[in-house]
């Protein structure tokens, strides 16, 4: 038993015949080959699978691909624009916001959403925003610094906030 699921991912429309029980994270990774989003705990605790679904971050191990039918998804592959890294990505490089990298794509998708809604978050806001995500390498210190770096450079750069984010 399969169904047709059509999802716009990072601006490109994809359609696949899938089982209704297929989870969005597996749809992205196995059906579309977008392996930037990571499949971690499988229990919506670790947040490494966070992507945007219709402009809101979601733990994609806890969403059926069927629920995304007709909707827009944004993954870490959609952060970069025209060869330019998003300030969040650059921030993680500048401030060493990762070691093993497993949590990084989820962290960056949440960080991008946070900065779109709260352009100048303090440390407490950043820690709250990522409180549903687990990093076992950095102790979170460098992740917080990375997001702060991105906040500064979001404001300074030629902002693309007027462009649709999806």
């Amino acid at each position, binding site marked *: *038993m399969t*169904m047709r699921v059509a999802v716009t991912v990072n601006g490109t429309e994809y359609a696949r015949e899938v*089982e*209704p*029980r*297929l*989870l969005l994270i*597996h749809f992205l990774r196995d059906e579309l080959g977008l392996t930037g989003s990571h499949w971690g705990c*499988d*229990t*919506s605790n670790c*947040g490494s699978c*966070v992507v945007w679904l219709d402009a*809101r*971050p*979601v*733990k994609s191990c*806890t*969403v*059926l691909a*069927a*629920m995304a*039918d007709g909707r827009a998804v944004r993954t870490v592959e959609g952060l970069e624009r025209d060869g330019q890294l998003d300030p969040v990505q650059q921030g993680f490089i500048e401030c060493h916001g990762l070691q093993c990298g497993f949590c990084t794509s989820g962290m960056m998708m*949440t960080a991008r959403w946070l900065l779109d809604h709260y352009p100048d978050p303090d440390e407490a806001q950043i820690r*709250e*925003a990522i*409180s*549903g*995500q687990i990093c076992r390498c950095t102790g979170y210190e460098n992740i917080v610094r990375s997001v702060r770096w991105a906040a500064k450079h979001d404001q300074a750069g030629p902002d693309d906030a007027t462009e649709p984010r999806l």
Partner: protein
Amino acid sequence: MQVPSQVEYERATSVDHALTLLSRPDTRVLAGGHSLIPMMKLRLAQPEVLVDINGLAELAFITCDSHELRIGALARHADLLDSAVAGEHFPIFGDAERVVADPIVRLWGTVGGSLCQADPSEDLSAAFAAARATAVIRGRDGDRTVQVRGFHLGPYETVIGPGELLAEVRVPVWPGTGSAYEKVARRVGDWSVAAAGAVLRLGGSAQNPVVKDAGIGLTAVGAEHFVAAQAEEYLVGRKADAETFAAAGAIAAQHCHPVADQRGPEDYKRHLVAELTTRALHRAAARVTLSS
């Protein structure tokens, strides 16, 4: 790798359509899915059909007039947390929502889903019970209303029947009311070890406030209907002071039925109930505005 069993998927395009789909046997409503999908992975739930109601914008609202706060079943936790009208009349919901899971889960999990999941450790059931909220249940023959205090039949079990859908929750608004929710969890985003919510209506003067009405909800400690009824009874008519609130906390602790588990032994949970009930009462009282 955890995957749910084979399941059929239907997307409801209207409330009526959802009700028609739900009249099929062995269906489950799929809203945020943040409890249901993990349960399906573990085979604790194995419905044949999922009815996705995420497109039903008419169930995603939060409104308030002078006598009633209305929360649509599909309002997301984040929406209730952010709602200025809800916060103005019932800070208890903001207190409780702030400690439901984590910000990402709160963007998708729904108020109605939490109530219908009927998890004994879930926070909103006690908050709504404290506020004496009413659940509006829609069926093909129309609406029926049930007090949230009678909504849960037991763990993971509610009064909602086949072919029915929780449509909204209504909370009566009274002047002179304050409310608060206090929770202890082992770590950020975790389920409660224990939690207490209080809704207080005060009379008298700012110098000598008196309890006119009290609602107390308890989470995760085996309180019948999530309510501390004996403590509520004790409070009514008494001075709203530290002595009264401490006594009410002790009564709440005495009459609940916590069980020892990985979150703590029974006596610790009773201690928490006494302490958290007392704290919630203090905070609720401090949020009441009385003329002096």
